[in-house]
């Protein structure tokens, strides 16, 4: 017991570990909250598409010697808004639009990196480098978290109405597009910051796993939102600790921890169902 405690104290005495933890927990909280609505509206692939666009933008920024976040965040926000418009108008089906955009952006990024000799490490974009989180990124993640939590706390009822049934919300006089736009922008920022954590290839796991876990277990929307946020933060924290202990990449540990929790949620649900049936039958 004391040994485990000592290890934890060791971990938190390292300043890069503290930054990794704070940023990781905050970004996963945002991703889990925004993810609930994306998953329920069947837009989960948007996170994946945006991360590939983010990769392309970061590669371009590195080639131009520009500040990576200042280039990537606006580009990804614009893409998020365009993707949202595109899926709403029904010109191209949402999922194929995302597939086209994400593979093209990835190809563009790879090309830029290989043609320019910037010495950019492809790996750190692809798979994240959570231990290299900068002070700026941590501050940005705090600002982002405050915005996302405020959005959910203040507009909770409206967010529910828009997620459950957008047509109904519009038909009864709500400005659904405003809420969609706000969440698209926040999702874009979350994705760019999340790339640092788990990389552009794995970011969708932060958006998709916590809501899936919550949807399995919860019967009301309120509980779903809360459980999603809590499980998101827990999976990322556990993943970081495991990665530190076994000296493995943090991104892989985070994703596989989420998978394990999801599997546990499925089993719990199954057992519960059997107990209910037993009682009723």
């Amino acid at each position, binding site marked *: 017991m004391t040994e485990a405690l000592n290890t934890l104290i060791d971990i938190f005495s390292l300043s890069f570990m503290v930054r990794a933890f704070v940023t990781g927990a905050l970004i996963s909280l945002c991703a889990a909250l925004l993810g609930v609505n994306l998953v*329920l509206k069947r837009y989960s692939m948007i996170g994946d598409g945006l991360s590939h666009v983010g990769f392309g933008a970061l590669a371009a920024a590195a080639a131009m010697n520009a500040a990576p976040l200042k280039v990537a965040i606006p580009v990804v926000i614009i893409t998020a808004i365009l993707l949202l418009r595109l899926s709403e108008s029904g010109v191209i089906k949402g999922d194929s639009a995302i597939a086209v955009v994400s593979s093209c952006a990835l190809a563009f990024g790879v090309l830029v990196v290989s043609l320019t000799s910037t010495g950019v490490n492809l790996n750190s974009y692809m798979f994240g480098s959570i231990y290299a989180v900068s002070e700026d990124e941590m501050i940005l993640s705090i600002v982002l978290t405050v915005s996302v939590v405020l959005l959910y706390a203040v507009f909770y009822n409206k967010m529910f*109405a828009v997620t459950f049934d957008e047509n109904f919300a519009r038909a009864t006089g709500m400005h659904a597009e405003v809420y969609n736009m706000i969440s698209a922008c926040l999702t874009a920022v979350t994705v760019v910051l999340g790339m640092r954590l788990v990389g552009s290839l794995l970011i969708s796991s932060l958006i998709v796993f916590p809501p899936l876990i919550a949807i399995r277990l919860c019967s009301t929307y309120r509980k779903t939102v809360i459980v999603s946020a809590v499980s998101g933060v827990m999976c990322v924290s556990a993943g970081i600790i495991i990665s530190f202990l076994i000296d493995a990449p943090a991104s892989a540990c985070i994703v596989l921890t989420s998978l394990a929790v999801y599997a546990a949620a499925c089993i719990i649900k199954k057992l519960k169902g059997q107990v209910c049936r037993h009682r009723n039958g």
Partner: protein
Amino acid sequence: MLIECRDVCLAYENHIVVKGLSFTVDSGDYLCVIGENGSGKTTLMRALLGLKDVSGGSIEFRDGLKMHEIGYMPQQNGAQRNFPASVREIVLSGMTGRSGFGLFYSKHDKEEAVKCMERLGIYPLRDRSYRELSGGQQQRVLLARAACAAGRLLLLDEPASGLDELASEELYGLISEMNRKQGVAVIMVTHDVNRALRDATHILHLHKDETFFGDKESYAQCSVCSHHVHAGGCREEKCD
């Protein structure tokens, strides 16, 4: 008069679905919109709700009818059936449009929602999860939500689709009751011509060339109805 449609034309990318459509809805009316698949019933509904722009003509709200006084019960989509939300949460969401910039539900909103749930017999289910309910119960929840939003007008799109006879009978009964007792005007899209002729006061029959609008007595004698018999939409004995 609540709604006046004049020479309305509805189209999707150069494909005209409905043209030259004129009709009116008064308060207390029960209008059934019938017609074959693809005749533009749902499109018309979306246009009335402002979800789709008209390509020609005009749809006007009269008598001070406001967007947030309209309740809408859409056709259910697949994503909704498995949505993790309680009955109470869904019915309450019917009040969000009314509350305007208000961010939280007032005590009055909550009482209204309870009344709607009681009226539709789903109050005992209020804490149950929507996805655990039967199809008929889910439709009732959506109707209760629409009823919460409907101050003066209720729009329904195939409310009984996918329900067995008993459940749809109950649902239609509840809709008629709202129309008669609370004086809410109803516009309903339906396949069920027999039912339309029984409950409705007015019929709007959409058809490629001839569109019929009038009260149901004159509909029974109208020639457009015979088109419908050929289309197999209703049984002959009801169309005499």
